[in-house]
């Protein structure tokens, strides 16, 4: 990039003054981040309500007859799609990515601020299109978030005409928004880092967001292609995915297509999508853990390479979602092997998080509690993944509650705990005020224990063989009455967890007005976003001088240095060299 000297950046530095340019049509990455995050959380609340409706039906099928079967399947579908794509992807990348990339990289903004703004508005459009499907005849699609044909577009599935079309259009629009944002994030990280900030000095948050964005850029095209082809099948009558089939005793006008082909395309997107959500969470939680343990992240280089190798491997494991789909069964050998290989770098990340706590000086405040909670749930969710990835174990367990419990644990609860850890951690930077610790801790305990009460028992219903995506279990010989009682308890826990999220919103709104002023660096953190001259950072982030980086983001508790942190923009070598082994460090510490 042709570097623009600071003196010439005046036109970028000026603050937009009117309300509209400041908060609505803003090109400031921080405002866009809040717009992205706010929209994602709002649409996420819709999905949360849908899950409550589902849980009430499952837990108390006779008491609360709030929804009929078709509404249930619509809720299942919209809940899944909204949570995965419109909440988690948008919030981690559009929200946290937008806020943190320029600040952590020490730049004034994204390299293409206008494109960034456009990305948000196109994302909002995709959300509105999706929401509009609730109000059309037939309602939203009820085909499951996987949208498997032929079912998606045949009668017998709710929203098989208008609902699914709106879903496909919305996904296409979302992908355009994501691509605009994604090109921006990657280019900014690659090209515009502050002087001295080499790639290997980046905070892991940036690494997680970077690799997740690259995954998204490569994976979303598969969803786009399958959405376009399905739209053709739906509206133009082509037979890409549609074989000759019957509908209500009549032969439909399709011939020769392959439903499995769609599944391959879908999961070629769908599996990396898991990591599009997980990798930013891995990155963010690493920074939260390190900061509050007052200790460098353990094995930084291993962490970076683990993120990269998990990202790479995620493109060759997709068919582990299809072991019992009827694809060539010999694929099972390959995909089971690649899937279990992913366990190694993932386990290394877990070890390194725990080893970061080892010999730390752990501050158990709210963000740290959420981060520790994440490690617990992620270990649980990751280990159950070893069941499903191992192809034969998938035979009894696929399409049961075990799968539901597994993926909610690993890509529902875990990323959400990281989201909260991050929101509590970065809220002081975004608003200039601390959040209330008491409310925050109460929120943590309710959420953490509540979600475990939902999902631990759910695994056991899966072992028993209770099938997922059932409106009601009905009568079977093998499901005992007690399973229904367990299901009722799960529902109670789920409703409880849903309701206590109010604590978070109360905390946010209370703290916005009454929170303790945070100052620039309340946690004593090293990375650049905490070193801004103003909090919240002003338009342009850095005042007249861009920061210059002298060290990595994890110089916590450096022996011999009076403070237990050295910000990245502080110059000077404080005697930590490579031959400082463990014992020497310890001696120095006891000597000090």
């Amino acid at each position, binding site marked *: 990039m042709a570097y623009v000297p600071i003196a010439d950046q005046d036109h970028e530095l000026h603050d937009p003054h009117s309300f509209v340019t400041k908060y609505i049509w803003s090109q400031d990455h921080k405002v866009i981040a809040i717009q992205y995050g706010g929209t994602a959380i709002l649409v996420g609340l819709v999905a949360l309500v849908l899950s409550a409706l589902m849980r009430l039906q499952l837990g108390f099928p006779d008491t609360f007859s709030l929804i009929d079967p078709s509404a249930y399947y619509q809720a299942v579908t919209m809940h899944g799609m909204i949570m995965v794509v419109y909440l988690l992807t948008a919030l981690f990348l559009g929200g946290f990515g937008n806020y943190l990339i320029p600040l952590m990289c020490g730049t004034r903004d994204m390299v293409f601020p206008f494109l960034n703004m456009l990305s948000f508005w196109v994302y909002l459009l995709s959300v509105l299109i999706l929401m509009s499907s609730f109000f059309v005849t037939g309602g939203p699609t009820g085909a499951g978030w996987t949208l498997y044909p032929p079912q998606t577009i045949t009668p017998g599935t709710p929203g098989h005409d208008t609902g699914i079309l709106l879903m496909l259009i919305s996904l296409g629009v979302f992908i355009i928004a994501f691509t605009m944002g994604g090109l921006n994030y990657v*280019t900014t990280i690659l090209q515009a880092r502050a002087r001295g900030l080499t790639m290997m000095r980046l905070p892991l948050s940036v690494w997680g967001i970077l690799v997740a964005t690259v995954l998204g850029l490569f994976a979303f095209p598969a969803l786009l292609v399958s959405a*376009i082809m399905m739209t053709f099948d739906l509206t133009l009558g082509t037979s890409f995915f549609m074989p000759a089939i019957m509908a209500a005793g009549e032969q439909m006008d399709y011939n020769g*297509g392959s439903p499995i082909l769609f599944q391959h395309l879908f999961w070629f997107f769908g599996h990396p999508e898991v990591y599009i959500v997980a990798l930013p969470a891995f990155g963010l939680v690493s920074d939260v853990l390190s900061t509050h343990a007052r200790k*460098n992240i353990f094995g930084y280089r291993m962490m970076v390479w683990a993120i990269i190798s998990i990202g790479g491997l995620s493109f060759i494991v997709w068919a582990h979602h299809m072991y019992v789909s009827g694809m060539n069964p010999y694929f099972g050998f390959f995909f089971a092997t690649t899937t279990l290989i992913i366990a190694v770098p993932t386990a290394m990340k877990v070890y390194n998080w725990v080893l970061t706590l080892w010999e730390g000086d752990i501050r158990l405040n709210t963000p740290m509690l959420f981060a520790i909670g994440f490690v617990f749930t992620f270990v649980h969710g990751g280990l159950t993944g070893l069941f499903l990835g191992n192809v034969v174990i998938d035979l009894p367990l696929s399409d049961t509650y075990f799968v539901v419990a597994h993926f909610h644990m690993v890509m529902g609860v875990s990323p959400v705990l990281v989201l909260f850890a991050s929101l509590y951690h970065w809220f002081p930077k975004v608003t200039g005020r601390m959040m209330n610790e008491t409310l925050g801790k109460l929120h943590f305990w309710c959420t953490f224990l509540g979600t475990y009460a939902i999902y631990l028992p759910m695994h056991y219903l899966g072992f028993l063989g209770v099938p997922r995506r059932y409106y009601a279990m009905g009568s079977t010989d093998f499901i005992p009455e007690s399973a229904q009682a367990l299901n009722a308890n799960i529902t109670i826990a789920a409703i409880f967890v849903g309701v206590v999220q109010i604590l978070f919103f109360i905390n946010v709104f209370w703290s916005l007005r009454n929170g303790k002023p945070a100052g620039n660096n309340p946690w004593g953190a090293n990375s650049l976003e905490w070193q801004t001259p103003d909090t919240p950072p002003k338009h342009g982030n850095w005042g007249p001088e861009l920061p210059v980086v002298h060290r990595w983001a994890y110089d916590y508790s450096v022996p011999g240095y009076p403070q237990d942190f050295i910000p990245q923009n502080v110059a000077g070598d404080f005697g930590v060299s490579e031959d400082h082994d463990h014992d020497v460090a310890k001696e120095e510490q006891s000597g000090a």
Partner: protein
Amino acid sequence: MSLYKNVTSKPWEYSSPTLGSGPESAFDTPSERIALTLFLVVVSVIFSLLTVTYYLRMDLGDWVPLTDPGLLWLNTALLIASSVLFQLARNASQTDRRQQTRTLFLAAGVLAISFVIGQIVVWQQLAATGLGVASNPASAFFYLLTGMHAAHILGGLWVWSKTLLRFFGDNELQDLRLSVSLCTTYWHFLLVLWVFIFAVLTNT
């Protein structure tokens, strides 16, 4: 910094930043070019997936090969000519010939427009012979692939028209040079992509 050094460096070791006022960049090119390159990779992924799908669908038993209209050869020639003119425009912009750049740039875009019109004529010819989009999988893919390619040309033409308007304003050539150059890269890519699609379509 070399790749090896990057991979093996120990980030916790102290080293003061090398002097200079610019930011750390992985590549010594304008950000716009990095973004375009990334975008082209994304587009390549889209068309690779379409091609893989094409070959998988072909094996499913009901494939009726399509006789491709001869007009496609003329359209290909138009797109090659368009790409060549973009390259000439780019060369002219490097040597500060604003007037010539503008003429070549305009002509290149017009040729691209005629390519799109040519493709529409091909679709009409095909439809006239009774091969609609739903007639058989080969024709469905024909419309899909050519349509997706044409959509990317149209996207390019949108950027082209914005740049052209700036040519007719009083902008300095040096402000336009990057745009001309990026358009050229994009058009070369779309040409290669088209030749690839054309080869796939005619060989099956």
